[in-house]
């Protein structure tokens, strides 16, 4: 299968290892991964902040980028960005009075999958240890990000994949379904409320005694990780793609460093 | 322009670009074939959950059960259309509320209990419907006394609200009762007994 990777802007610029892990998993399964070079961002920061006029060129660019190359399906390691592509792009196009763009955005959205959706629903992965060779001998908890959970209805796909990783020790997160408080520019405009939500999320994560909190959205993980870092917590955050990419021969550390061999040289 | 004309005109203007609405899908449960014994069981469970007291009796036991439930009342009111064979004979405690001979609010407030029948009951939600018929009376009599004894004929029990709705005359003054009066206003914890009757005794009658 030919799979077009939508890296998402935050992963592209801040967490390239998440996209590299995504590529690694898919190539390990024998699929061809392509990277449509025109891609940039889904535009949800603009849309969610009310800047619709400014969002339109961003959305148009995404549709153009993913129309200009041939592939079977597109994938992004983010529930939030995929929800934007699938649900927000057609709505924005309609609001801006562009019916043609709406139809094109719907077509791109229909071919776009969140990573766990692709792995479970399309590629039939049910056991990461057996089918992907995933191995990650650490104690892990998991935060299901809101847009994946509620907009995409991902259910337990990410969680079940994580639990099937070799060597992993899993700890349930109390109040897991509660938002971490990120919400894009919400964290700037309503920083106090956002921080109060983050405090509770961080406290719940620490209560599990896990070495790290896994998730499926780099933005939420940056938010939670940033809060944990500020309080000098030892707990970190890591994208589930990186955990799935970790193997016995090429292990990934709890901070996401790719270790080579037993010496642990980066 | 009158207020009515102006509001209707505003609505018409507001809706000028509105799409035609779709049909209402009615895929929810509208009928049930739950056997009588299970209907009774379900209704009892729901009512007890609301902290109502429930008896399930056959017709011959009804008068004795009513007498038992009313034994602590120094006075009780009944609507004029109640079946008098249910009632304790020559009872000086009894007050009858009838059209043209209604009890005042003060008299009702001085009455300990009320006995009524009921129109239809919904097992799934534990709801008893009064419709103001002669055996149920006007709304005030089942409201002001602090203790309501309510007779529920088994033939009036259905499982689902849509089944009950089909049996209701919606233009009657209707009171749906699901347990004694209650409030969740303090810390969202339910406590029973506020302004309505604090005690609700339900007598489910088989064969009626």
């Amino acid at each position: 299968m030919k799979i077009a990777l939508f890296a998402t802007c935050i992963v592209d610029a801040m967490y390239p290892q998440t996209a590299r892990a995504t590529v690694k998993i898919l190539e390990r399964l024998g699929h061809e991964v392509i990277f449509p070079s025109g891609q940039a961002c889904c535009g949800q920061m603009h849309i969610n902040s009310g800047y619709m006029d400014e969002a339109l060129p961003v959305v148009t660019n995404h549709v153009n980028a993913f129309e200009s190359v041939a592939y079977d399906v597109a994938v992004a390691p983010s529930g939030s960005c995929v929800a934007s592509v699938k649900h927000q792009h057609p709505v924005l196009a309609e609001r801006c009075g562009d019916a043609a763009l709406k139809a094109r955005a719907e077509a791109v959205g229909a071919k776009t999958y969140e990573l766990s959706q692709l792995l479970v629903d399309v590629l039939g992965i049910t056991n990461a240890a057996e089918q992907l060779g995933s191995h990650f001998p650490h104690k892990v908890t998991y935060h299901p990000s809101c847009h994946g959970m509620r907009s995409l209805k991902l259910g337990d796909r990410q969680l079940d994949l994580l639990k099937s990783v070799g060597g992993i020790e899993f700890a349930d997160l109390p109040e897991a379904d509660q938002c971490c408080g990120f919400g894009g520019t919400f964290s700037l405009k309503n920083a106090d409320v956002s921080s109060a939500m983050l405090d509770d999320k961080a406290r719940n994560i620490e209560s599990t005694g896990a070495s790290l909190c896994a998730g499926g959205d780099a933005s939420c993980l940056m938010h939670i990780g940033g809060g944990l870092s500020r309080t000098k917590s030892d707990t970190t955050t890591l994208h589930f793609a990186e955990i799935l990419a970790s193997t016995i021969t090429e292990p990934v550390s709890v901070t996401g460093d790719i270790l080579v061999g037993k010496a642990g040289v980066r | 322009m009158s207020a009515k004309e102006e509001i209707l005109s505003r609505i018409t203007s507001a809706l000028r670009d509105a799409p035609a609405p779709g049909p209402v899908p009615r895929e929810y449960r509208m009928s049930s074939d739950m056997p009588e014994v299970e209907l009774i069981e379900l209704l009892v469970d729901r009512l007890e959950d609301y902290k109502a007291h429930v008896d399930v009796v056959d017709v011959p036991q009804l008068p004795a059960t009513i007498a038992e439930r009313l034994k602590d009342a120094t006075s009780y009111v009944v609507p004029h259309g109640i079946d008098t064979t249910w009632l304790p004979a020559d009872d000086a405690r009894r007050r009858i509320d009838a059209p043209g001979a209604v009890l005042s609010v003060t008299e009702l407030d001085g009455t300990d209990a009320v006995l009524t029948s009921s129109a239809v009951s919904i097992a799934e939600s534990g709801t008893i419907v009064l419709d103001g018929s002669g055996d149920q009376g006007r709304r005030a009599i089942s409201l002001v006394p602090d203790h309501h004894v309510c007779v529920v004929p088994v033939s009036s029990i259905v499982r689902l609200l849509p089944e009950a709705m089909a049996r209701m005359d919606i233009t009657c003054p209707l009171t749906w009762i699901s347990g004694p009066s209650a409030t969740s206003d303090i810390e969202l914890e339910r406590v029973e007994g506020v302004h309505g009757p604090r005690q609700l005794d339900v007598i489910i009658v088989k064969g009626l």
Partner: protein
Amino acid sequence: MSNVFMGMPTLPVFGDGNLHIEETFPTAAHRELGNTQMRANLRHATHTIRDKRLKVVAELPDWEELRDAGSATKNLVMANLPALLEEFEKNFTARGGIIHWARDAHEANSIVAGLIKEQNTTEVVKVKSMATQEIGLNEYLEEQGISAFETDLAELIVQLGHDKPSHILVPAIHKNRTEVRDIFLAEMPNVDPNLTDEPRLLAMAAREHLRRKFLSAKVAISGANFALADSGTLAVVESEGNGRMCLTLPETLITVMGIEKLLPGKEDLEVFMQLLPRSSTGERMNPYTSLWTGVTEGDGPQNVHLVLMDNGRTAALADKYGRTALNCIRCSACMNVCPVYERTGGHAYGSTYPGPIGAILTPLLTGITSEENSTLPYASSLCGACYDACPVKINIPEILVHLRGEDVDSKRGEKKLPSQMDLMMKGGSWAFSSGKHLGLLEKGLPLGKLAAGRDKKIKALPGIAAGWTQSRDIPAPPSQSFRDWWKKDHTPVAATNKQEK
């Protein structure tokens, strides 16, 4: 009514009353967040109700089908509103009721005051009603020399405590049992000085306090949860019996209701009476529901009025992306599941309608440019819990985003310097509308790494980004973007697996 105005678009007429917030949401939220007792109370209460709601919703195998029916019914009602209102009026009037129409809060208030004065009384009892909260009826009546006694326990707590409601179902949700006891001891005449904070005893104290008022009141004022067009029937859903007292004992009953509350008929009521109690108090059914159709001879009030009120509803209806907010049945499920509401409480929203529904309904009723109401649609992380919980499937997050767009657009015309957010969004629009632009910017990533310093963390940012660094670090950026790595270092692998979808 003739339809001579049809096709002549009129400007939306916005609502008035307790809908205009005086300070921005972030300012109010900052203050409320500091009230740790309130936050503990709210956390306890909202978590209690969440669990109850989930349990009773799970009992119904057809919950989603009921939501679908409820949502479609409300859309149908809004589309046919003029005809349904006329039908309702005809049926209600035919059975002895009297209808009054009110364009706005002031008109509704003066109609109610006039009707009370006709009865030569200066005291009325009230059933909890959002519509009368919205229009500030109690305050208006007080100016007219009329005392309105709230009879719902939570409303009574708020009224006695000289407080404001903070929740549409449980207006005193921000108070715990001890605080309620203290209010009763201080404000309730003839209260037992040994009153404890046991909720059952507090409820008994309220019963004692209000009993004589109920038995002697000549006029009652209520809202309505539903109105059935094909029969002219009104419905009030309640728990304590205060509603039955008000709807049954006085000679005169005045109901104030928004025009959006209509349902076509009783086959619709069966849907909503399954959705509402489970969504609001988390009960299978509320203790009491009263339905009345005009006047019934010899039973209940013989002088029955209904005030049908617009007050901005037609303005909300005119917003094609926002009009489904009018489908709200005031269950409060959205605020009970909202992580923002849970932490700030209802007062931070500054309007009669708090929480997620308030954040959309308030600016829809008043217009987005009214005072500080434009800050309300931003009072959400867009987590979507409200949409999941809404029994009539109002897509609250989508309407929040729409209203943010309205806010930004409304400010575009203003001749002033662009805000930091404006500049960030303009810059972002350039960067994110092309892979080349983003790639170019990413060449600067090593600079960010430098700025992060030795511990690889950015701990303080200027301007609006300081909101982020008040409680979070940002990791040092990588030295190479994914895009760059892909171009320079990735060795493409041809597909070996021909597995198809």
